[in-house]
């Protein structure tokens, strides 16, 4: 059983009211959340301090313009922020931020994390052409899917449909969305930590006890696990092999958008943007001679396989790589699959716990003898 704050308003208004009261009562210095930026339904992550601006916050707008984990890392890269900031983020974004903090790319200090049981988001394509706004059909369809596991979010991204980590692991507050049929009239916020309880203290609403892992959530989880199996089976990813990979990654146009948007790819100087990655003229000449011709740019397959070794262990499966890929490469499916198998070796779930070290930064003296000869 968890302590839950129940506000008699719809989820959006309820969360807005809570955030407004935080700002008005000076409990927090700022609020970090998705905010409406124009009437076409465009939203952007914003850090606001003026309580009057809270009106424009759309905390659960089903679109991820960037991984908030990466944005929060930018905010705290050289030190923590002084005032407490209430950050409304999705579970995968929170995991990405925790993973970045482990890699010393940010600080968790002075944040109050408000997350939700997440229903996923629509793809970039659906969101930027103006079809998605709060009075659109996509919007009402989305909330229908969130309420009811049966019509589970028909059009959200495949990555989201296959995500079983829809409950945040380290949020101070979790807004209960999934499977909650009454989100239009009530806003339930579970208070997971002492910090969460302290902030919620004195908020308008009633405090109740409730089980978070209810039947509806179990149904969602089962559906999503099924969906993941279907996704892997449909893409035939297990049978890819080298030829499949070359064919898939061969479509890459070399824009490096996937690594730029990836929250885990944080290196300032990426090896794949450096001179190390370029071929010498003599290499081109040798290769042409050996193979009778080459495709240019030559290294796109190597780039993706290299990225799999770098990112695999920490991939949180946010799916932005697939979202931005102009060549429609199913990157997030591949990263999800490889990430899972690599993480399984060390029984590691990225971003779950900030105290748990990244497997490559630690070791046991007696382990993995099967990889030695």
């Amino acid at each position: 059983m968890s302590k839950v704050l129940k506000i008699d308003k719809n989820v959006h208004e309820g969360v807005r009211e809570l955030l407004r009261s935080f700002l008005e009562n000076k409990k927090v210095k700022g609020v970090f959340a998705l905010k409406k930026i124009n009437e076409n339904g465009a939203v952007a992550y914003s850090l606001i301090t003026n309580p009057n601006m809270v009106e424009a916050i759309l905390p659960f707008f089903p679109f991820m313009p960037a991984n908030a984990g990466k944005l929060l890392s930018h905010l705290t890269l050289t030190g923590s922020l002084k005032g407490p900031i209430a950050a409304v983020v999705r579970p995968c974004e929170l995991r990405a931020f925790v993973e970045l903090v482990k890699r010393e790319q940010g600080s968790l200090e002075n944040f109050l994390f408000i997350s939700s049981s997440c229903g996923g988001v629509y793809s970039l394509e659906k969101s930027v052409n103006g079809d998605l706004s709060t009075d659109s059909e996509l919007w009402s369809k989305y909330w229908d899917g969130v309420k009811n596991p049966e019509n589970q979010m028909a059009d959200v991204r495949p990555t989201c449909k296959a995500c079983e980590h829809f409950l945040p692991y380290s949020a101070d507050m979790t807004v209960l969305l999934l499977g909650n049929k009454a989100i239009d009239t009530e806003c339930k916020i579970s208070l997971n930590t002492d910090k969460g309880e302290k902030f919620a203290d004195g908020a308008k609403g009633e405090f109740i006890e409730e089980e978070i892992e209810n039947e509806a959530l179990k149904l969602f989880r089962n559906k999503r696990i099924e969906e993941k199996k279907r996704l892997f089976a449909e893409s035939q990813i297990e049978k890819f092999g080298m030829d499949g990979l070359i064919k898939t990654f061969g479509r890459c146009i070399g824009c490096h958008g996937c690594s730029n948007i990836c929250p885990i790819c944080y290196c300032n100087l990426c090896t794949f943007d450096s001179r190390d990655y370029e071929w010498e003229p003599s290499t081109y000449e040798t290769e042409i001679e050996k193979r009778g011709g080459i495709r240019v740019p030559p290294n796109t397959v190597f780039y993706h396989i290299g990225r799999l070794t770098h990112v695999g262990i920490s991939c949180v499966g946010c799916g932005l790589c697939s979202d931005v890929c102009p060549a429609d490469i199913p990157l997030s499916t591949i990263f999800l699959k490889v990430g899972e198998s690599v993480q399984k070796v060390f029984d590691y779930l990225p971003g779950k716990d900030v105290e748990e070290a990244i497997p490559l930064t630690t070791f046991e003296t007696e382990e993995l003898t099967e990889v030695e000869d």
Partner: protein
Amino acid sequence: MSEHRKPNTEHRNWQPKIIAFLCNWCSYAGADLAGVSRIQYPPNIRVIRVPCSGRINPIFVLKCLQNGFDGVLVSGCYPGDCHYISGNYYARRKFAILKTLLEFIGIEPGRVQFSWVSAGEGEKFAQVVKKVTDDVKKLGPAKRFVKRV
């Protein structure tokens, strides 16, 4: 099978090219000992000396395979013997991840091998090289992850 590899496979006397990353303190010294003891081992390996097996970035191994090597041997000090105390433990973890990835991208497990060789084990070094060479010979030329023209 793509066309550009045909000449290689048809060549009856095809010899694999294998790259060996040897740690300066143990395996490289082991190779040295094999040399001065005049122990014979297959001449298919090209040695790169690294300060520690922990220095080896999985990208090195992938780059070798991309550039046309048929096999990769990574060798360092025994657990507990690392000159830098724990470099080889990290190497082992990196290698475990790399192995999972290689499996996914369809590179046969025998192509990339990891082995401990100490400075006193000239004989073992020769055996390891022989084993790796035999394994890679059986597998044939490596598929390279390069786009077809």
